[in-house]
């Protein structure tokens, strides 16, 4: 009896129907899990094994005659890893999350145009809680938030890194 019922369960799990429905649902769940409308980072669970680099509130300065407001930090990845930037913006904003390599940051600081696209440029419209992940190698990186509006915008940011 037990053998039969376990065989039936095995048969269902491995049946074509279960595969047909289960696979898209599982992938959809994974893709949508990081994007939601909420006001805190609790909505985005930290990936198991990830190491939090920084977590806290940052106020991105307003746009000025110097250009868009910028707040950012340099990070170092000691190995190939997933770099996750989770953010929550509670008001309407015109922010852009940018991730640059150290070389690209140096180029921009010298006033030179980038020869390659930045690693990430993500529009943040606000209010929203979302995350963005990229794969990084062993290197220095710069993660910055650009503010294109004429008033400062606050954001809660959590940056984590997970070697794989």
């Amino acid at each position, binding site marked *: 009896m037990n053998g039969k019922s376990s065989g039936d369960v095995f048969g269902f799990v491995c049946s074509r129907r279960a595969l047909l429905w289960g696979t898209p649902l599982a992938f959809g769940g994974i893709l949508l899990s990081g994007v939601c409308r909420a006001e805190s980072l609790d909505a985005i669970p930290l990936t198991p094994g990830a190491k939090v680099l920084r977590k806290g509130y940052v106020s991105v300065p307003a746009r000025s005659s*110097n250009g868009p407001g910028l707040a950012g930090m340099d990070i*170092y990845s*000691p190995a190939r890893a997933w770099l996750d930037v989770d953010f929550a913006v509670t008001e309407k904003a015109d922010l852009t999350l940018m991730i640059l390599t150290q070389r690209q940051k140096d180029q*921009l600081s010298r006033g030179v145009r980038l020869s390659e*696209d930045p690693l990430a440029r993500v529009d943040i419209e606000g209010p929203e809680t979302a995350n963005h992940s990229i794969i990084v190698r062993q290197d220095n990186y710069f993660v910055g938030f*650009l503010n294109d509006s004429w008033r400062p915008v606050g954001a809660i940011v959590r940056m984590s890194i997970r070697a794989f």
Partner: protein
Amino acid sequence: MRLKTAFCKSAFATHRINRVRFEVALFVIVPLSFGASTAICQSRAPAWCNVPGTSGYAGACQSSGGTRTIVIEREVIYKLGPPITVWKLPSVEGATSSDMAPISNRNLQIGAGNESAGPYGLYHKARRALRDGDSEKALIYLNAALQRAPSAREADDILALKREAQRKFDESQAAKFRFQKSDRQTELVEIDVDGVPDNVLAELSNPKRMDKDIEAVRRELFPLFVAQSDARKKAKELEKMSKLNGQGTGGSQEQNAVAAEIKKAEVALDAAEKIVRAKVEEKKEVILKLVPRRDGQ
């Protein structure tokens, strides 16, 4: 399943026979997905042949040919690879990371601002601006997007949105314009209308008739009425002057000139009247057309 040639001890041996094909696939997929090598235990296990036409067991079953389906069990041998780095201790990243803080670096700010959006990023910004009703901002974004070497497909999207943004911008500009009351002075003029049937004049003067057709006729006819009235007034004045001159001591030459003027004015009046009559006749149908009135009568 027509032939069962080999059998290895396994839990799957109790499964129904119609699931065998899937089990074989599973045995192939699972080891491959883990990157493990496999070995097939065909020879070590006792073979079992009970199908007529085969030659017993101990070894591969022999058949006379055709398709054969077999059940096999694979032994998974995991290879040791290089150790996966979980993390390096002490944490190097912590030692070199700066704090997330505002940065004041003009070059970096402007450069990052310029690089912060590709053509399609600007396209999406323009879409958002358009959704928020700011068509002017949308146009700025779209123009910037076109200058950033978009691909052909991106350019199509950008140009289509630019057309829409331009249309909305034009509409918004038109909506901003307010018609104001003109400070031009007007005057009421009394004119004599002649040669116009009463019912036609009544319809022309009817303030409840505001339809487009009669408005067009009014714009055509009223200047003609004024011209006709002016011609009549001029003719009357000249006639009056002529009478006054006849009573006085004016010479015949002067009288002749006045007479010529009167003649001229009469011709002009005649012409004006003819024009009015012809126009009224031409537009009579439109003027007298039955139009539902605004008061519902």
